[in-house]
């Protein structure tokens, strides 16, 4: 008990120095939590966008579909198959899709379009398609009308309530064709989606392509996205070799790559930050040892065992580092929350990259408590590792030597 008291008093012996050390630690924790929260927020948001815009976290296709997206690679929709997938623990929901290309035409223009047959409610549940309606209405269950994207509408030079003609190659070489009224206009951030997509009810699409009850994919929604890879693996096992189970990471390797490189560069910045802090802490420890050399020598001379001295010095560093860490965490919480409510809007190159992927470059910070705990613990450990220096000094200390006249 007395040793704890002594450590506490020693910590405040040189107020300025302690204040400098604490603020170095404080800023390290603050900067690293804020950067990490921002980064995680950026990626969380990015991934959320990917999912909500189109692909979903996991998709199931007939084996080979993703490589070659032709109608030969479709599979039979069935209650049993859906049931098998939905009984997998982490799967919350699925939406069936039938996707294929077609030529869309008005009286004057012909453009290529991606026809997506959907089950309106299920699709909306996973990709919030309804929210992308900017004009007109969303599909109902038995609708024979269609939704088209704003870009496609402009390219065709058509408008809401107009009728367009679709023409494509159907299943087994048949001809797919039909005439549809435009019931709603959708706007997507992604140029690809915005320039080509065209939605209709699933049975309508299946009928047009001559492929009743056939699907190109199931789009899955998960309960916990953290377990996406395990879920995908176990679905692969259950469904066997006739199907392919793909995560968004596999479907969009360019985004996965982008996140990886971005995280790597952020790691380097954070490591540099930690190195700076280490120098700061080490410097003060060095000064502290020089300043207290005589006193520590005297304590050994009068009979303080070195193990007790080490205990004392570790307590002193612990107090300092913990104070800095706690302050850092306490102050960073409101800052991070502020950045969550008032998200950062990127501009320039960075913004362009995101716009190319089709997302608005607005990024709220992540308030995942793990970030705070993790960064706090890292700095705490760094501080403790650094305090080994005085310990080594103490172990080697000779009382006569250290008490020589200064």
């Amino acid at each position, binding site marked *: 008990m007395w040793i704890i008291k*002594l450590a506490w008093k020693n910590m405040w012996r040189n107020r300025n120095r302690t204040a400098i050390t604490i603020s170095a630690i404080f800023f390290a924790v603050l900067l690293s939590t804020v950067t990490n929260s921002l980064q995680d927020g950026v990626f969380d948001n990015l991934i959320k966008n990917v999912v909500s815009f189109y692909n979903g976290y996991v998709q199931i296709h007939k084996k080979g579909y993703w490589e070659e997206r032709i109608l030969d690679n479709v599979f039979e929709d069935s209650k049993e198959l859906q049931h098998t997938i939905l009984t997998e623990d982490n799967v919350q929901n699925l939406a069936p899709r039938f996707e294929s290309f077609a030529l869309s035409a008005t009286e004057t223009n012909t453009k290529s379009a991606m026809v997506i047959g959907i089950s309106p409610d299920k699709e909306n549940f996973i990709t919030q398609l309804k929210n992308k309606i900017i004009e007109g209405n969303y599909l109902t269950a038995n609708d024979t009308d269609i939704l088209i994207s704003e870009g496609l509408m402009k390219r065709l030079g058509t408008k809401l309530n107009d009728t367009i003609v679709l023409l494509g190659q159907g299943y087994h070489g048949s001809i797919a064709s039909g005439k549809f009224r435009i019931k709603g206009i959708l706007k997507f951030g992604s140029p690809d989606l915005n320039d080509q997509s065209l939605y209709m009810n699933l049975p309508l699409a299946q009928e047009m392509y001559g492929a009743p009850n056939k699907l190109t994919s199931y789009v899955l929604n998960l309960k916990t996205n953290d377990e996406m890879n395990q879920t995908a693996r176990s679905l692969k096992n259950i469904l066997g070799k006739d199907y392919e189970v793909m995560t968004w990471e596999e479907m969009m390797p360019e985004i996965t790559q982008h996140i990886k490189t971005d995280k790597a560069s952020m790691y380097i910045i954070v490591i540099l930050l930690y190195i700076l802090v280490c120098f700061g802490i080490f410097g003060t420890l060095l000064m502290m040892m020089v300043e207290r050399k005589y006193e520590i020598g005297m304590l050994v*001379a*009068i009979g303080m*065992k070195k193990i007790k001295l080490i205990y004392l010095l570790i307590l002193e560093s612990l107090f300092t580092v913990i104070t800095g860490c706690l302050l850092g965490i306490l102050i960073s919480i409101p800052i991070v929350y502020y950045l969550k409510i008032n998200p950062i809007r990127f501009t320039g190159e960075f913004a362009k990259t995101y716009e190319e992927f089709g997302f608005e470059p607005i990024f709220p910070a992540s308030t995942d408590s793990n970030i705070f705990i993790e960064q706090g613990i890292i700095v705490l450990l760094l501080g403790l590792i650094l305090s080994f220096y005085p310990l080594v000094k103490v172990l080697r200390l000779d*009382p006569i030597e250290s008490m020589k006249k200064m």
Partner: protein
Amino acid sequence: MKTVIDAHNISKTFNKKSIPVLAVKNVHLHLEKGEFVALVGPSGSGKTTLLNLIGGLDKPDQGNILINGIDITKLSANELIDFRLHNIGFVFQSFNLIPVLTAKENVELIMQLQGRGKREIKERVQTLFQEVGLSDKLNSRPAQLSGGQQQRVAVARALASKPQFVLADEPTANLDSKSAANLLDIMTKLNQEENMTFIFSTHDQRVIERARRVITLVDGEVNSDTGTYLELNHGNSLI
């Protein structure tokens, strides 16, 4: 009669690799309980080195040092720290005290190191501060005390651990003559009333006059020794 220190033919050489300095040369030293000894001699004569040797802070190149019958030259560095804690009281020339602790806490510290009980510590601190005449300075920081007062706290601390003897290397060197006399008064009183053994080095003539036994060192050798005043131990004051 109880022997406290029995050093036999001890020597210590520094700078063995370059120009060797024979700091202590074949010294025999025998101290009985209750002695009050001044170690004198010119600067560089080996007083500090000899005190470090008998205080277990340094090891001789040759010879044995028995404290209360234990040969401390045979102890490991760690055993020596513990030995010092329980057997030797130290008063250094200056900066004896931990600046962040109060006078009282500085004295308590050594007893806490010894693992003594709270009550015993509390009582002993009161007694000791009374004896060194600083009962009103219990809660003062070292910086708030004069040099003389700081040395008196150091004496209180040295006694707190109930050592075999108190060892003081030039305890009055940084004090004015009044404070020095005052410190000597206190040491003398503790020597008489508690039969505490003191050995201190000095080159201050006024301090030497207060000693009951004076050992003179010249070039690391004992040049003269006034011998043990046996009558001290029968309670007869010399002053």
